[in-house]
């Protein structure tokens, strides 16, 4: 075997281990070690290419198919046509207004749900009697499809913002409660012993151990509930009222403005992506130990 075949092997294994020749194992610097800066730059480049490349590729393919008349423009308008509609709806201010309405509803509902979920989850995870008493109720609420409750919410809270916000909050609340409580219960006894031996109070234990330890799980549930919250939001806006992105999508269908319908869908999904990135970014910010010692943050 020649040297040349050993080099790619060495670069595949990031430790720089390679099989130089039969019976000899070689440990040499890999590409990450030989020029750390260039390696990192290449890594970032490839990450970004993949991150932006896939959506762009999808768009390009879509445009090509549309131009080749493979896609029926009645159902699949070309990205160009959608972009034009986007520009119109943005410059008229309509889209921005509706986005704003939707986001306000979302943040009110999601924020309240997450907050109450954290508190109840912490209580359930910490106090066994509370867990025994309340967990069955939470499970029951978890099982009910939240959308089925919307008519009830309308009855109880009228036609304003309240029923929408509460429904989103309820969806988020249940999931965050369950994840938080489960994560707290799962903390190994051994982790608690240093604090017990120091005679820490319940609050001190929470602050120094429980909370930081369950933060990763909490952030996973926060991320998942952004998706669930957006789903409920859109559904509710379609059913009732005349505002928000859900309404934009629904009403576009009703008047057969397919381009605007796509604008609504795409705006919603971009907002969803942005929300998830926001959650992950905050997560990295408040859990600096999780990225410590990682190759790339």
């Amino acid at each position, binding site marked *: 075997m020649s040297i040349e075949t050993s080099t790619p092997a060495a670069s595949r294994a990031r430790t720089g281990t390679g099989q130089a020749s039969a019976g000899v194992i070689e440990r040499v610097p890999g590409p990450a070690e030989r020029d750390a800066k260039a390696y990192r730059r290449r890594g970032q480049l490839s990450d970004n290419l993949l991150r932006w490349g896939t959506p762009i590729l999808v768009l390009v393919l879509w445009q090509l198919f549309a131009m080749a008349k493979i896609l029926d423009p009645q159902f699949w308008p070309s990205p160009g046509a959608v972009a034009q509609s986007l520009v119109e709806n943005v410059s008229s201010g309509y889209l921005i207004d509706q986005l704003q309405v939707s986001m306000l509803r979302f943040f009110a509902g999601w924020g309240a749900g997450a907050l109450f979920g954290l508190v109840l989850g912490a209580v359930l995870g910490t106090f066994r009697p509370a867990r025994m008493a309340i967990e069955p109720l939470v499970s029951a609420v978890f099982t009910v499809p939240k959308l089925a409750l919307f008519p009830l919410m309308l009855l109880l809270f009228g036609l304003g913002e309240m029923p929408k916000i509460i429904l989103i909050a309820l969806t988020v609340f249940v999931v965050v409660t369950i994840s938080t409580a489960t994560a707290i219960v799962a903390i*190994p006894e*051994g*982790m608690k*012993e*240093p*604090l*017990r*031996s*120091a*005679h*820490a*109070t319940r609050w*001190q234990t929470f602050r*120094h*151990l429980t909370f*930081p*330890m369950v*933060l990763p799980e909490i952030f996973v549930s926060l991320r998942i509930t952004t998706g669930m919250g957006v789903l409920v939001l859109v559904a509710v806006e379609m059913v009732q009222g005349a505002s928000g992105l859900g309404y934009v999508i629904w009403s576009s269908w009703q008047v057969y403005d397919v381009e605007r319908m796509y604008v609504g869908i795409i705006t919603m999904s971009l907002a969803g992506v942005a929300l998830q990135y926001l959650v992950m970014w905050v997560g990295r910010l408040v*859990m*600096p*130990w999780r990225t*410590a*010692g990682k190759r790339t943050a």
Partner: protein
Amino acid sequence: MNAKIDAKDVRRNFTTKSGEVEALGPFTMQIEEGEFVCIVGPSGCGKSTMLRVVGGLLNPSSGSVRIRHDGPESQAVSIVFQDYSIYAWKTVEANIRLGLDIAKVPREEANERVERWLRRMGLWDFRKAYPQTLSGGMRQRVSLARALVVEPDILLMDEPFAALDAQMRAVMQEELLAICQAEKRTVLFVTHSLDEAILLADRVFVMSARPGRLLAGYDVPFERPRTPDLRGTEQFAHLENEIWTLLRNEVNRDLTNVAADGRSKKLEAIS
């Protein structure tokens, strides 16, 4: 009562799916104030259990442990754990501070004490680092500093150096010797190394196979301050041999029981 730690007929059982396990006892011992006691015994004989009972993490099933201590209970005992010792989400500095934060020691004083131990353990340059980025030996130093910074009356240590390599172990032993000679603390130190036990201890206790009882206590006659050079002396070897003979019988007895159980876990019998 004038012993610092007075354990009387301490037993501890555990209930498991496969039945009741007698982990410890009846275990009786007295430790005087300022004494450094090392405990050795076959693996699974209840050393950690005994330490946890003394540390108040586990109640005895019967019997009692009395600890003489004036002042707040939070300064009575601190423990260096066999595992799970330090928190990933705290920097080195914050980990060491933990006990002081919990005892609400004033900020100025806490800073000063933390700094002293950071320097003493050679961790000053790493005070802002997260444990994930440290070596095993450094982590162990963090957990040692965390236990010592609260200046406890009694220090309980459960095989604190077991995970370290030979050099690091020697360095930490010397460090611990220096610390204990400077400030007379009562120390209860579980180890599976006889060599370590004799080097560090005033007395070495040997425990029986599970359920662990106190088989014998050996006085270690060497003057302090001690240095690791002691290992070369004939007296050292003689004592080590004497304890080893007793311990080996105990381990063998334990293994015979295990073999009778139809299992065959012979390795790692002594730890």
